[in-house]
Every structure is written in structure tokens, then in C-alpha cells.
């Protein structure tokens, strides 16, 4: 069944079609321009970054053979054939992995505490003085823009090799990142409870405790858990600059071509990270669910 389509007379149709074509052309031209810009940027960047596809394709065999070698023992057998030989250093690695996790925990906890005290100063709606807000914001920005590893490098000079500089670097970065997120949470609260508490004559910190905190706590915990997840991942590489954790052993085995050790440590890291991701993800979803039920 064909439904009748009303055709406009040709004289009316033509200008409409022409303007439609013009609109499409303009849009195409715009997209083309964007694409041209991107292509130009890519071309320039490729020169700067010394990208060479021949090198990649020439060496891509290296990548696969590298991955292959990762899964072979010195004797030439597959690693799965002799798990005891593959994980000869399990005790040491587990200890280092535990240290890594503890580093991530302490770094996250210290950073979260700092962010917790800063965020009420940094939030526009509850800050006691505007200049405090500005100061807190800039401080957080500085803390999160300087890469963690750069802090770690400097702290290693001051504190010496070991987990302490790594934990401090992580704490500072966490403080910056969470300070911003926490402040945004506080800026989104309902101000009525805060006003209510203030109206009874309570000082600022009491108004924050009973007016603002109950609305924000579950979000704070959820963000802190997310940060913990991220920090576990980055704690695994802090050892690259001598700041403790399993990264020290990992970089040594990569540099000295102890292939099966590399794969053994990587597998341990991947398992740990996935377990932590799953666990924190579960807790966060429950927290968010609680928030929504409220």
C-alpha cells in the first residue's frame, strides 16, 4: 500500500532543494575542515614524535616474540608447564605486593584526610572567606597537575630510597585530585540544613559537621574508593624511580631480561588490580544505591 506523498509544484520545490543542498554542503565543508585540521596535526606530530610505520611493522615481530618469550622459562618450556619454577620468588613478590597495597592505602588515606579538610574551604557555597577558597583551589590544582612520579623523584632525593617518598607523592596527588572532587560534591549539597544549623547560632565547623557532612559522606567514600583503585595501579610503578613497592622488582626484571619473572609479576599485578577493582566497584555501587534510596 503506497501512501500518497504530496509533491510540491516544481517552482516551489526548487528553491527548497537548493537551500537544502547548500546547508548540506556547508556542513560537509565544516566536517572536511575539521578532518583536514586533524590530519595536519597528526602529520606534524608524527614528524615530532619520530613515528615510523616501517619501523613498527619491521619490529612488530619483536612485540609478539617478546610476549612469547615472557611466557617461556629459561629452559625453553612454557611457563605453565612448571608453575613452581615460574613463581620461584612468590614469597618475596607477595610481600612486595602487600607493601604496594599498603602504600596505596596509606597514600589514599592521608590524601583523603587532607582533601576532606580542604574541600569545605574550597567549596563556593560554604567557604568562610573567598580568599581561602582561592588559596585552597590553587593548592589542589598544583598538587594534581604535577605528576606523581615527579613528586616521587624529588622525595627520593630528600627521604632516600624506599616506600616513604612513594607514599608521600601519592598522598599529595590524591589530595589534589580528591580536593577538587570533594569540593564539587559540597557545592552540590542542599543548603537548607546548613542554614538551619547556623540559625541556631552554631559556629562554622558545627554547621559543616551536622549540616553539610551527612549529605556528602557517601559520595566522599565512593570517590576515595575510586581513588584507591587508581592508586593501587600507580603504586605498582612508583618503584620505577625507587619509591618502593613491586615496581622495583618489575623494572629490574624488565631491564635485565628475566622474561618469566616479568610475566609472573605482571600476572600477579593484574590479578590484584582486578580483585581490588571488583571489590571497590561492589562497595561503590552499594553506596550509590543507598544514596538513591534516600
Amino acid at each position, binding site marked *: 500500500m503506497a501512501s500518497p506523498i504530496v509533491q510540491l509544484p516544481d517552482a516551489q520545490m526548487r528553491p527548497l532543494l537548493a537551500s537544502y543542498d547548500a546547508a548540506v554542503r556547508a556542513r560537509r565543508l565544516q566536517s572536511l575542515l575539521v578532518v583536514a585540521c586533524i590530519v595536519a596535526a597528526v602529520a606534524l606530530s608524527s614528524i615530532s614524535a619520530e613515528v615510523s610505520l616501517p619501523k613498527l611493522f619491521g619490529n612488530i615481530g619483536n612485540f609478539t616474540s617478546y610476549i612469547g618469550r615472557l611466557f617461556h622459562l629459561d629452559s625453553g618450556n612454557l611457563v605453565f608447564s612448571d608453575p613452581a619454577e615460574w613463581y620461584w620468588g612468590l614469597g618475596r613478590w607477595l610481600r612486595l605486593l602487600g607493601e604496594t597495597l599498603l602504600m596505596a592505602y596509606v597514600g589514599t588515606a592521608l590524601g583523603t584526610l587532607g582533601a576532606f579538610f580542604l574541600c569545605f574551604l574550597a567549596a563556593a557555597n560554604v567557604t568562610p572567606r573567598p580568599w581561602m577558597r582561592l588559596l585552597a583551589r590553587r593548592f589542589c590544582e598544583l598538587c594534581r597537575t604535577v605528576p606523581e612520579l615527579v613528586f616521587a623523584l624529588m622525595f627520593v632525593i630528600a627521604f632516600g630510597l624506599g616506600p616513604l617518598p612513594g607514599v608521600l607523592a601519592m598522598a599529595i596527588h590524591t589530595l589534589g585530585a580528591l580536593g577538587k572532587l570533594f569540593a564539587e560534591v559540597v557545592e552540590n549539597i542542599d543548603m537548607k540544613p546548613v542554614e538551619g544549623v547556623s540559625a541556631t547560632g552554631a559556629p562554622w565547623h558545627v554547621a559543616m559537621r551536622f549540616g553539610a557532612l551527612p549529605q556528602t559522606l557517601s559520595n566522599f567514600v565512593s570517590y576515595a574508593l575510586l581513588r584507591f583503585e587508581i592508586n593501587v595501579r600507580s603504586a605498582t610503578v612508583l618503584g620505577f624511580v625507587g619509591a618502593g613497592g613491586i615496581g622495583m622488582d618489575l623494572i629490574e626484571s624488565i631491564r635485565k631480561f628475566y622474561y618469566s619473572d616479568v610475566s609472573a609479576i605482571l600476572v600477579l599485578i*593484574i590479578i590484584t588490580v582486578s580483585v581490588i577493582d571488583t571489590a571497590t566497584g561492589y562497595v561503590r555501587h552499594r553506596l550509590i544505591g543507598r544514596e538513591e534510596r534516600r
Partner: protein
Amino acid sequence: MADPAALDIASIRGRHPHHFGQPSRERRLLLALAVAAALLLLIGMGAFGFFGAAFWLGLGKLGEVAGLMIPPNPGGWDKALVFALSLVETIAISLLGTLGAAVLAVPLGLLAANNVTTAKVLHFFARRSLDTIRSVDILIWALIWVNVVGLGPFAGVLAIMTSDMGNFGKLFSEAIEAADRRPVEGIVSTGGGKLLGIRFGILPEVFPVLASQVLYFFESNTRSATIIGIVGAGGIGLHLAEAIRTLELQQASFLILMILVAVAAIDIVSSQLRFALIGRRSAVV
């Protein structure tokens, strides 16, 4: 005259007795959790030497180090030029890595989206492999790629590409899963195939979201690209690590300032672009 506050509390206690009783079980559990967390924190801090003399000694030394960083000074114009070029290289690494990852992640995202990939097994494996890629830090990828293509920025590009493929694949698949089904059904009903359905039904809806995520990652990758030089994968990190290790601290602070300015500039440009793409309201990625 009796204290009005005391009277008030007595009458309120009469009306709401359950607010004055013993703390609930949930509350006690939370309290126990908090105490355990604090204990673990203290034990950890003790194990890492936060309470030892070395900590305070280190703090003093840190103050000295910070003092040596002022004023920032590149140490000559030729050095400044080298640093500027390596900063450009850093941004180039970030751009290429992000774009490459985005292109490679589109098919992966489609594979991992459960409304496109109906085969459960395929979907599961796509998801798990993306998770595996994501749980390895970018610096580890950089080290591996340095072994494959040698020292230099190219290894950095490949490292960012690999590690972001995991991130993008996950985000893309979530964006695709959240997309409206009806446009696809409309296209299929006019006789279009599955591929056309993706092209005209899903792509126009998810493209702005994907593009804004790519821009967001470009920002954050510029930050990562500044550090992958530490393991020899190109960019400004090489100079920075060298300056810190050789205690050329004025140079180090100059480099850090350069990074801060560059990152801030890219932040501003890319957030403008993101707002133009998806509107200010939904700009939260």
C-alpha cells in the same frame, strides 16, 4: 526558672525515644570499621617510617631541595630551546597516542557492547581483555614498547595507544550500550543492514560523547606523556628526570613550570571544545 534547654530535651526524649537509645547495630559496625581503618593507617605509617627521625630529617632536606629550585632557570637559551622542542614532542605523543587509541578502540568498543555483540562468549572475552589492558600501568607498557621499537618518542606513542585502548574500549562500549535502540530499528525496518544500522542509528548518537571523551583523555594523556620519558619513551620527562637526578634543581623547576603552563593551556582549549561538542550541562565525563 528552669533551664529551657533541659526541659526541651526532656520533652523531645519523651516524643522520640528511639533517637536517644543505644546506637544501632549498623552504626556500631561503621564505628568499628572506622577504628580498624585508622589502626591500619597508623600501622602502615609506622612501617613506612613516618614516625621515625628519618622522616623529620627528610622533611628538612625537602625544604632545602625546594629552596634550591628557586628561581626557575633553564640554564641558557639553547637548553630552553631543547626543552621547548621536547614539550612539543610530548604534546605530539599525546595527540597521536590518543587518536590512535580512539581509532583502534571503536571496533573493540562495538565488540564489548552487549547490544551490538550478541554472542555472549565474544562479549565476555572482549570485556576481560580490555580489563587486562587497563590494569597494567602506562609506564609498564612504555617499558615493553621500548624493548620492541627502541628508545624514543615512538615507544611513548605506542604505550599511550595500548593503555588507552583499554580505557576507550570500556567507555565506548558503555556509551554504545546506553544508546537508544529505536533509530537502529527504524533503519532496519527500511531494509538497511546491521552495518548501516550502526552507521546511521548508533554513530550519530554516540559520536559527540565519544569525541568529548577522546578530548578529555587527550588532556590527561598530556600529563602521562610528561612522565613516560622517565623510562626513555620520549618527551619532556627524560629531561625532567635527568635534571632531578643530577640535582639541576633550577632546571627541574623550570621544566615543571613549562609542564604546568602547557597542561593548563590544553585544559582550557579542550574543555572549550568539549562544551561546544556536548553542551555545558552534560560535560561531566
